[in-house]
């Protein structure tokens, strides 16, 4: 963003005073240069390097022995990768939907001019401020059958209470969903609350006069007018889902077995601990593809929207 602003600024001055370039004209460029260089090298440079490596048979160290799409073929034959992908589907889908639903609901409730709103808002938003590692660790204790919720319920007298998803390969992915939802839904709430606060109060009055109930007003008028917020929340949540690495690392460490791996954990394991840099790079590229598939339409519509205004 700063980058753009600086570019736009210098462009304008050039148009205004063509010939003389003073220090003032150069200053923004000089100031921005280190950041720009760092961004180009560290983000785009390494991205390209990863792309190149994904076409080689690099193992422990990068080599440039090109083997075409072999690594991608291996990747999609790899059972662990397929588990990670399907986990991503389940985790991503449930995480996004639950977060959106809870976030919208919390925002609507908070919007009813309740008392102590500031405090409640902070409480819900707080999880977003802590790292996924902390969330993962905390939920690991909570979900652990021998000393968490299950134990508490049994001690309360519900002898038959079972809650052992963390050690169940079929259910462990839902543990990830619970922890991630706990962390991110407050953030979605904040997004929507800001949106709701921006809704024209006269519009709500008009709906009331038109005879719409509160429920109908939200469903037919207010929420549809928050479409851009939905869109932003969707993009933010889905890239959180695709990038999720630390949560798995802290909460389940991929286990039991590799049943709760997500693509990022797969990538990390192969590139850095199992000496399969080529394969890791290929999986990274697939993840990049997923993120781009979400971001490009978003950026496209955002930029187009700006031009419309």
């Amino acid at each position, binding site marked *: 963003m700063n980058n753009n602003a600086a570019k736009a600024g210098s462009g304008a001055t050039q148009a205004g005073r063509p010939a003389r370039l003073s220090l003032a004209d150069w200053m923004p460029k000089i100031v921005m240069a280190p950041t720009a260089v760092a961004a180009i090298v560290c983000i785009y440079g390494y991205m390209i390097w990863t792309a190149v490596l994904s076409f080689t048979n690099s193992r422990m160290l990068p080599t440039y022995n090109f083997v075409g799409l072999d690594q991608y073929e291996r990747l999609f034959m790899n059972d662990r990768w397929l588990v990670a992908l399907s986990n991503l589907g389940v985790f991503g889908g449930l995480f996004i939907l639950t977060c959106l639903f809870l976030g919208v609901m919390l925002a609507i409730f908070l919007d009813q001019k309740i008392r102590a709103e500031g405090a409640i808002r902070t409480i819900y938003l707080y999880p977003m401020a802590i790292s996924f590692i902390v969330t993962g660790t905390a939920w690991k204790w909570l979900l652990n059958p021998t000393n968490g919720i299950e134990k508490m319920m049994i001690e309360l007298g519900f002898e038959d209470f079972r809650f052992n998803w963390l050690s169940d390969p079929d259910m462990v992915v839902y543990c990830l969903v619970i922890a991630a939802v706990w962390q991110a839904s407050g953030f979605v709430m904040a997004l929507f609350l800001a949106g709701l606060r921006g809704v*024209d109060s*006269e*519009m709500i*009055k*008009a*709906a*009331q*006069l*038109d*005879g*719409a109930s509160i429920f*109908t007003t939200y469903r*037919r*008028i207010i929420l*549809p*007018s928050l*479409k851009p917020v939905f869109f932003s929340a969707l993009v933010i949540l889905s890239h959180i889902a695709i990038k999720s690495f630390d949560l798995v690392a802290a909460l389940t460490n991929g286990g039991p077995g590799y049943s709760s791996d997500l693509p990022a954990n797969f990538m990390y394991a192969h590139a850095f601990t199992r000496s399969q840099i080529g394969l890791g790079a290929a999986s990274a590229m697939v993840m990049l593809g997923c993120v781009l598939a979400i971001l490009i339409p978003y950026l496209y519509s955002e930029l187009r929207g700006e031009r419309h205004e």
Partner: protein
Amino acid sequence: MASLTIDNVKKRYGQTEILKGIDISIEAGEFLILVGPSGCGKSTLMNSIAGLEDVSEGRILIGDNDVTYASPKDRDIAMVFQSYALYPNMTVAENISFGLEMRKVPKAEREAEVQRVADMLQIGHLLKRKPGQLSGGQRQRVAMGRALARRPKMYLFDEPLSNLDAKLRVEMRTEIKKLHQKLGTTIVYVTHDQIEAMTLADRIAVMKDGEVQQLGTPQEIYDNPTNLFVAGFMGSPAMNFIPAKVVEQNGSYALELQASKPTVVPFPKPESLKAYAGKEILLGLRPEMITEPQPHKEGKEFVVTADIDVEVTEPMGADTMVLTRISEAEVNCRCNPAYPAKADETIAMMFDTSKAVAFDKDSGKRIDN
């Protein structure tokens, strides 16, 4: 169509009283305009009539029904808002028919109604568009269309034209007037625009600080303001308030002003000045009552010609406003543009006090009625 009675309505937010006992009643089919300075409680009163705000005290009657505690949708009122408040995600047609849909009107009927309203407001070609794709004037029409569609008992307009440019505003004003004549529905309308108030209203209620200062026909308000505030608020340019001394003259009372020289002018109700003999009052005289000398008025009762010192002239096309100073007060005179009034010169003006009013200097109350 229904009459509206607002009976001693009070509205408090916590400790602060916003409406301090409003009493207004209008007949079915009347066009009531609320005017008053910003923050005097016009919107609050409108919202109370619509049921969007609860009143703290008093009653509101529509027709013979006490609706003080009825919910907005049961009052059968439609409202046009200053921001238009269209539903951005719905098309124009959906915006218009939403209220009908909520009232479970069958689809075919709804469509017919949308068509009727669209024809009336000439927005038929816009029905499929979203509000974001409309100009300000078109949005305004759609907002009116939404109000018209339900055929309610009463319309409330809260500054509906204030976001339009001057030309469009005049056009829409005429259309609203026509619409009212055609539908004959009771309308309550808030505006800041003097001309809108004068041209549209059957009755004007001038409000200040949560109180109705005066309720009357536009002409009553213009000619017979009950106090200094109403007199100064209605009319543009505003009424002149000239400090004047009450003097005894031939057994009656008249007013002495300091124009270029001391001048004595007669007053229509001299006996009302008796209590103020020898004291100062404020003489209220509209700018159009101070003009260039007009031969046909010469020698009439209440007409006096006197010299004034011109300070500034402001040509307005049809008239020229001449600014002068009389008894230390700034005074506007409305002259024929052909009259050669020039800044810093002294020139004769004709004072017609037949419609003059007098106010107590301290309380601001009318003296002469």
